[in-house]
């Protein structure tokens, strides 16, 4: 609060004061008081007014400064009303009261929304677990009644399954921290498990697999990593027109272990490359194929960040894409006993 602003607000009061002093001075002069006395009296009156104003100015300034400082300090500004100290002047009291009431209303609204979101979240997770039962059942039906129809149906089921899994991990990605446990993992075990899980679609496309140098150990959560690998594998298959050739290789590089998945697919145009991990980005390839949601890679990179991994993409259009997951070597320190 600046003094000038304060005085500007007080201009009617100041005008009245000045008028009153002028009146008194005129009266005293009319009553033939000595000029020196009149001047002294006028000065005294002005001094008293000024002192009163200053006292008020400092009191208010203290309050508003404390208010501004609290606001500055708070990470969540909406809690301002909770840390307010009630001032000793009427305007401040009104302000505090208003702030408290609006703050509380906002809090209530927020709490209701959070509650609703948590309930929806819970419902989505429960729903996903429910829907897995008929999927498993349909899968078994296909297995038990082999034939052309079953094969074709199974491909659709796999797509459903992939979308369901994506939804589950999307829902869960909000609180990775609560469902996360770091273990010592061998990359070959991990990669082979992911490959086995996607065996059917890989075999249906007659994929050639190659493993190279996967005898490395990393420290990470297997469940999330399995999902990420699955998404990357599905992506490679989706953007490869001919016979897919997937190479999984690992090597050490500086202070990280790099796991790479190389494919011989369409590749990503250089102008699209920086944005492939953006939410909703489908790019040239996605648009052409029209089946891209722009969620898969976004989710992968978000999960990687939460898992302290680094996911990067490199590509030569027409030759293929290499996705790299970097496991920092010091991630061993994340290992919980």
């Amino acid at each position, binding site marked *: 609060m600046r003094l000038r602003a304060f005085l500007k607000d007080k201009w009617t009061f100041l005008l009245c004061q000045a008028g009153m002093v002028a009146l008194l001075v005129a009266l005293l002069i009319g009553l033939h008081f000595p000029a020196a006395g009149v001047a002294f009296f006028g000065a005294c009156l002005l001094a008293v007014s000024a002192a009163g104003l200053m006292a008020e100015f400092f009191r208010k300034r203290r309050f508003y400064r404390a208010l501004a400082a609290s606001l500055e300090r708070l990470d969540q500004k909406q809690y301002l009303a909770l840390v307010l100290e009630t001032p000793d002047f009427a305007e401040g009291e009104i302000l505090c009261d208003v702030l408290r009431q609006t703050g509380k209303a906002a809090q209530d609204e927020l709490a209701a929304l959070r509650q609703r979101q948590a309930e929806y979240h819970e419902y989505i997770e429960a729903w996903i677990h429910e829907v897995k039962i008929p999927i498993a059942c349909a899968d078994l*039906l296909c297995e038990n009644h082999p034939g052309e129809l079953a094969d074709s149906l199974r491909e659709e089921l796999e797509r459903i399954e992939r979308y369901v899994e994506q939804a589950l991990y999307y829902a869960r990605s909000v609180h990775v921290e609560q469902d996360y446990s770091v273990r010592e993992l061998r990359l070959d075990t991990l990669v082979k498990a992911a490959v*086995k899980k996607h065996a059917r679609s890989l075999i249906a496309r007659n994929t050639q697999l190659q493993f190279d140098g996967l005898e490395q150990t990393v420290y990470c959560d297997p469940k999330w990593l399995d999902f990420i690998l699955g998404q990357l594998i599905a992506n490679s298959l989706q953007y490869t027109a001919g016979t897919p050739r997937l190479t999984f290789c690992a090597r050490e590089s500086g202070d990280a272990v790099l796991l790479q998945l190389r494919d011989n697919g369409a590749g990503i145009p250089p102008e699209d490359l920086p944005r492939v991990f953006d939410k909703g980005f489908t790019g040239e390839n996605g648009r052409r194929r029209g089946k891209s949601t722009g969620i898969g890679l976004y989710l992968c990179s978000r999960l990687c960040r939460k898992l302290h991994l680094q996911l990067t993409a490199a590509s030569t259009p027409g030759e293929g894409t290499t996705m790299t997951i970097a496991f920092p070597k010091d991630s061993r320190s994340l290992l919980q006993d």
Partner: protein
Amino acid sequence: MHIHLIEDDGKLRGELVKLLEREGYRCTFEEEFEDTARRALAAGADLILLDVNLPGEDGYGVCREIRRHSDVPVLVVTSRSTELDELMSMQLGADDFIVKPYHPQILLAHIAAVLKRAGKPDADRAQYKGVTLHAAQGRAAYAGRETELTKNEQKILSYLLRHAGRIVSRDELMQALWQSDVFVDDNTLTVNVNRLRRKLEEIGAADFITTKRGQGYQI
């Protein structure tokens, strides 16, 4: 080999039974879920397949109860893949853990692995029409003559023997091989099958594996 199913979804259970019986397992199952653990034990199975999301009863409680009285292998099935679920299953003494929806081939691979670990190796049908597979020595025998097989050839022959009489599609065969860490592609499979055929022919079992055009193999 006898598997006892604890699964509340009737249709799923029916299909599981079909699948497992086709693979040569004998199956029993529960339809009511009271006192499940005791009844499962009474079934005297070699392996219990337990879905932990049961109506009215806590699946983990069942698992603990089974483990308290017996060390029969338990394979836990769940539709939740959270850390907690896995931890619970393992701490309560389950032998393995698989998440729905599982692919049938993966389920079968898990079952075989659990049985093997429990020292109940799958009683593979190792003989058909005079051809015998001695898996331990990696040999096939026919009419007193023997031939040595590579790992891939053994796995192929073993799968065909297990499904003797039925047409096995190339995709199915490849899926089964992949589940046992043999990641062959189409060409390699052809080469391996042809080599296996030649070896069997050398010991006198000519035309043991027949090709059904566009369908797969049959013995």
